[in-house]
């Protein structure tokens, strides 16, 4: 194989190569869908609460921007030897709190052993403040069906939303659904 380009563009190889490429693309799309499906089917489920968001900040085209109560963790929950750095990948240990909402137990630089009822969620440090850490989970966007976006926006402004999240055994997390909390009068 002296020259990759000559090798690849040889007309005799075109059809098998294209078949290979197309098969790879189909498998990739199926893989993305499979991963999404399996995360819900096999994963653990937690419920997170959002904090009320600035309504101007909430709706970006076809997705809603979410901010969670666990997006900010106090620095005393940090269990690493070195202080946390920005952009560092960390692990958040969650346990169900009152009202079955997940609450943060600790933030670890390496994956901690989860006790019964506890769940580990991948997170990334976005900012380190004096007494707290800002985290993101790649769960900050929820793609909503066209018409209902506005409804969620109004709901998010008035009171927190409840976000159902599935976490796959391999650590991938995704939003299963978002619901409004009924306000009790």
């Amino acid at each position: 194989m002296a020259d990759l380009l000559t090798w690849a563009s040889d007309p005799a190889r075109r059809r098998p190569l294209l078949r290979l490429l197309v098969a790879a693309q189909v498998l990739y799309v199926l893989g993305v869908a499979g991963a999404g499906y399996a995360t819900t089917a096999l994963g653990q489920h937690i419920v997170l609460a959002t904090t009320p968001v600035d309504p101007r900040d909430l709706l970006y085209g076809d997705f809603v921007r979410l901010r969670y109560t666990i997006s900010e963790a106090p620095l005393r929950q940090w269990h690493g030897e070195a202080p946390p750095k920005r952009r560092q990948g960390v692990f958040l240990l969650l346990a169900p709190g009152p009202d079955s909402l997940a609450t943060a137990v600790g933030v670890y630089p390496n994956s901690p052993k989860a006790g019964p009822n506890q769940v580990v969620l991948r997170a990334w440090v976005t900012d380190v403040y004096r007494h707290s850490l800002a985290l993101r989970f790649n769960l900050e966007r929820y793609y909503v069906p066209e018409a209902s976006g506005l409804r969620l926006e109004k709901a998010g402004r008035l009171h927190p939303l409840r976000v159902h999240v599935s976490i796959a055994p391999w650590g991938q997390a995704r939003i299963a659904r978002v619901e409004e909390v009924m306000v009790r009068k």
Partner: protein
Amino acid sequence: MSRKFLETESPGWVTDGLISEAQRQQLLARYPAEVPAVGLLPLLGSVLVGLSALSVVAANWQGLPAVLRLALLLGSLLGAYGAGTYFLRRGNADLGHGLIGLGLLVFGAAIILVSQLYQLVGYDVSGLLAWVVAGVALSYVYGSRLLVLLTVVIGAGVQTYCVQALGSFSYATAVLVAAGLGYYWWRRPEVVSSTVLSTGLLWQAGLLVLALHAKITWFFVPAMAIYAAGDWQARGNGARALQGPPLVAAYLFMFGLATFGETDAYADVLRPPLLPYLGALGAVFALSVAGKRALGRLNTLLDWLLLLPGFYLPGGLPLAVATLVVLYAHAGSVLARAHRNQDSDQLTVGAVLFVAATAVAYFKLTWAFLDKSLFFLLGGVLLLSLSWYLRRRNAQTLAAAPPAPPVATPDDAAPEPPASTHNS
């Protein structure tokens, strides 16, 4: 030469005795009239039907069950690739490559839509990276200009998304495009693909500077690295086409510096630490010079005039004068080279550069002292006389050229961007 041109002009040639009637018939037979484009109608029809189907699907997309959405996406993916190979086999290369390009676009759409369906798009760019990989691979297999163009655009789009929405630069995307298509360019330096690739890489370099919050002048280190790559390319056309966009960028920057640089307000965003910047740019310069020397192209060395870091000078008059001197010297170098090579396109480019430099000089250096009407009068006269002088010189150069000059006809020259015609 078009058939229509031949049909209208050739009777005149016969009357003038240039060719005989028999020769006219031979010429006409040599360029047969194209088959009337009846084949276009079914194509247009199917495009319309396809569009209507697309609208129906798009309107009901949210209501469709997930499995059906997936099946629709994969079906159109397979359909586009299948139709592409079918038309390629029948010898219709344009349509075939177009449909394969459509397949590539559907692949990207499928990744995005499926990720949205399962709420997997957050900050994850690996899915889009697969799109770039597929584009590079298809470009290799088909060697089509369209696929290269699509891949460059997809790479730039993915990178834009990363920087804008995710706030981080995807080095993997940049490396994939630069290495994958760079190798393609190295083997097949076509003019159009080279310019497109160069522009796409410049776009990514700009995004890198943006994402790193670096001083904007750092942009010229990767930009000139692209330029230096051109110096090592043996085939001149592809080399100059790749070097065009970085040169245009450098020229525009120098021009902007000459026009707006006298206030010191911009200076802070332009000045990186002196030694690292000059070191990096110097390394690229050395690479470029080595390439020019190896391929005997040292006559293009003065392109580098545009990279003189004049922005380290204090703002105000010194900076204005220095940048103007550089602009004049650069225009002069282009004119001199064009004169030596007897290249009419280059003479035009050089003349335009010269006039532009003069306009800036006039505007910068005399505005404060002169009455406005006098300014316009003198400026107009200066530009007119300069253009007259340059045109005369241009004509003399061409008149002195040998009978069969190596000059491109205007038809060939027109589509090329000005700076990529700095042919040596």
